[in-house]
């Protein structure tokens, strides 16, 4: 039963992480930017849901309101900062988004205070097998919404005009430009969509966990790892690696103890990277 609990907890957690990683994979693939402020966008989205909750609106509505607001926040960040670093070295984009991350943390702290807060959904609990496996309904809700948004994104990328433009730009920005795609607009939209996904995830996190102005970084790191493990541009891979990571974390927690939870995730990352390198080196070809 403990095993089943761990697997289910891990899966539900992983699906939520995967949603954040989706956004990161998208803008990393399209714009070649590693967004260190990803987690801070998530937290900001969480605060939107929290404030709705404070004013008596059910925080679940946050999953609709938060992405709309966050889309515009994303576009504004793009116009102010990101468009200046988009074609530059990866290192510069890391520095720039790191700056945004610090700025966001301080602004959120200034505006919302340093207290740890949460939004209560009042969703209750699903109990299985005579109360030996318990699943908070808020977590199930989170996972469900995450899946809906993830599928929605994939469909949107395949079918819509903007989606096609985004994919074209990701493949070859110059060629896309020549063929009449306004890459500037595509970049802004991509960053906006990423921020909107963060907004959804944030609203879900405020319902399932807690939020705090300085809690963004772990979400950035997790999504970074999920994307690395899955590989760029591999959206189903992101979903799989997100869930896998969630389950892996839970088991590491049970078997090794909570203190090794994050550590074991990093260890896994190192192992995967070493394995990748090993595989690559065997396939290495030389130009003569």
């Amino acid at each position, binding site marked *: *039963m403990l095993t089943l609990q761990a697997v289910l907890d891990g899966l539900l957690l992983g699906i939520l992480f995967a949603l954040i990683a989706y956004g990161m994979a998208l803008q990393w693939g399209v714009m070649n930017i590693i967004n260190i402020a990803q987690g801070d966008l998530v937290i900001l989205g969480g605060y939107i849901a929290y404030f709705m909750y404070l004013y008596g609106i059910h925080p679940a509505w946050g999953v609709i309101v938060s992405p709309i607001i966050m889309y515009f926040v994303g576009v504004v960040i793009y116009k102010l900062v990101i468009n200046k670093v988009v074609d530059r070295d990866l290192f510069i984009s890391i520095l720039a988004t790191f700056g945004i991350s610090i700025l966001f943390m301080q602004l959120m702290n200034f505006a919302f205070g340093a207290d740890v807060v949460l939004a209560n959904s009042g969703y209750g*609990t699903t*109990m299985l097998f005579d109360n030996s496996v*318990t699943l*908070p309904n808020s977590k199930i809700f989170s996972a469900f919404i995450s899946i809906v948004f993830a599928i929605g994104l994939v469909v949107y990328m395949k079918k819509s005009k903007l989606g096609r433009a985004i994919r074209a730009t990701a493949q070859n920005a110059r060629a896309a430009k020549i063929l009449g795609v306004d890459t500037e607009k595509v970049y802004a939209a991509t960053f906006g969509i990423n921020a909107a996904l963060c907004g959804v995830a944030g609203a879900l996190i405020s319902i399932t*966990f807690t939020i705090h102005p300085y809690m963004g970084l772990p979400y950035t790191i997790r999504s970074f790892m999920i994307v690395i493990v899955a590989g760029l541009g591999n959206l189903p891979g992101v979903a799989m690696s997100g869930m896998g990571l969630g389950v892996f974390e*839970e088991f590491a927690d*049970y078997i090794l103890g909570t203190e090794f*939870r994050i550590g074991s995730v990093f260890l896994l990352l190192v192992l995967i990277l070493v394995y990748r390198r090993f595989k690559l080196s065997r396939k290495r070809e030389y130009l003569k």
Partner: protein
Amino acid sequence: MKIKNIIITFVSAIAILFSTSVVSFAKVVGDKIILGAAISLTGKYSSNGVHTQNGYNMAVDRINDMGGIKVGGKTYKFDIIYYDDESNPKRAAQLAERLISQDGVEFMLGPYSSGLTKAIAPVTEKYGVPMVEANGASRSLFTKGYKYLFAVLAPANLYLDVAIETAVELNGGKGVRIAQAFEQDAFSQDVRLGILDAAERTGSKIIIDDKLPKELNDMAATLAKVKAVKPDVLVVSGHTKGALTAIRQIAEMKVDVPMLAMTHCDAAKLSKQHGKNSQYALCASQWHKTLTYKDDFFKDGMTYAADFEKLFGYDPPYQSAESSAALLVFKDAFERANSFDQKKVRDALADTNMQTFYGNIKFAEGGQNVDKPMVLFQVMCDDAGKCENKVVAPLKWASAELIHPIPKWSER
């Protein structure tokens, strides 16, 4: 052009010289005793930093209004120079250095949190500046042999001692089975050491001993283990985040434990954020307004709480009360030393033996207050869902009877 540059340099040099000499304070200016404090007004500790500052300010105003401090036949008033340490230990140490060497402060008040106090203590010690602190409870502060550090609060290892002892007592003197989860920071790990001591003393067994990473906001794995092994007591300490996460997930996962003991319930506003789900949680507290300690300045806890609420608009958490007490200690020491000599004030501080509205204060060799026990309160809610914190242990101060064991979730 060259001359212009020289003039600009000259003028700015004079300006800088002038500005530093103007802001430079001495320890005592006119009728003012100037204390220095680096406090977290921004950054992650800012809410508790503000509680600390409010506590200091309220006590300064009160002492000044009620006649000030009498030293050498003259009356003095308190004044505090504050700097914002941004919740950053390095910055706090720099600011302490600046307060002492640039602003000429010779007496310091402590910052918020053990971590920041740890950063400042070596600096005040180096300059021989007496520091009375009210918000650093980590045991390691008191084992370093600091001579100029005095803490009005009980050390962290005593926070949840009482809970284990109470559980053992209720178990007919037999040892209990303890599950514990502590954040990996100086304070929480000290609380853990206290539990380990108490467990050994009472013959109790620790069956789960998890360390929570700082960034963790999910305790589901720990709680699933708790559900499986059914301990007699569950102890959680991880600042406000730990308290909020624990209550949320215990309620969601319907974890039944006979006793749940925590820290930081006050700061987390548990009952406000979680309502009835937080019911029956036992919380360690340095102070509670219903305690009946008395002094001449604030009368007692209830009066202090009422006055504080009038000024700042919220019920004082213990962080504010202990900060106010720090000023009372300073006043008492200045008057007994009858001097502003740092050594004499330090010796007077070491001899402190007084009662304040916050509790008795008497310092041990290491500087910690040994005369004030921790109290435990339990969150109790009425049928309408209104929750209150009631002191349940130690029995001497109890205002309500401990509810034990906690009713099962299925019966609530």
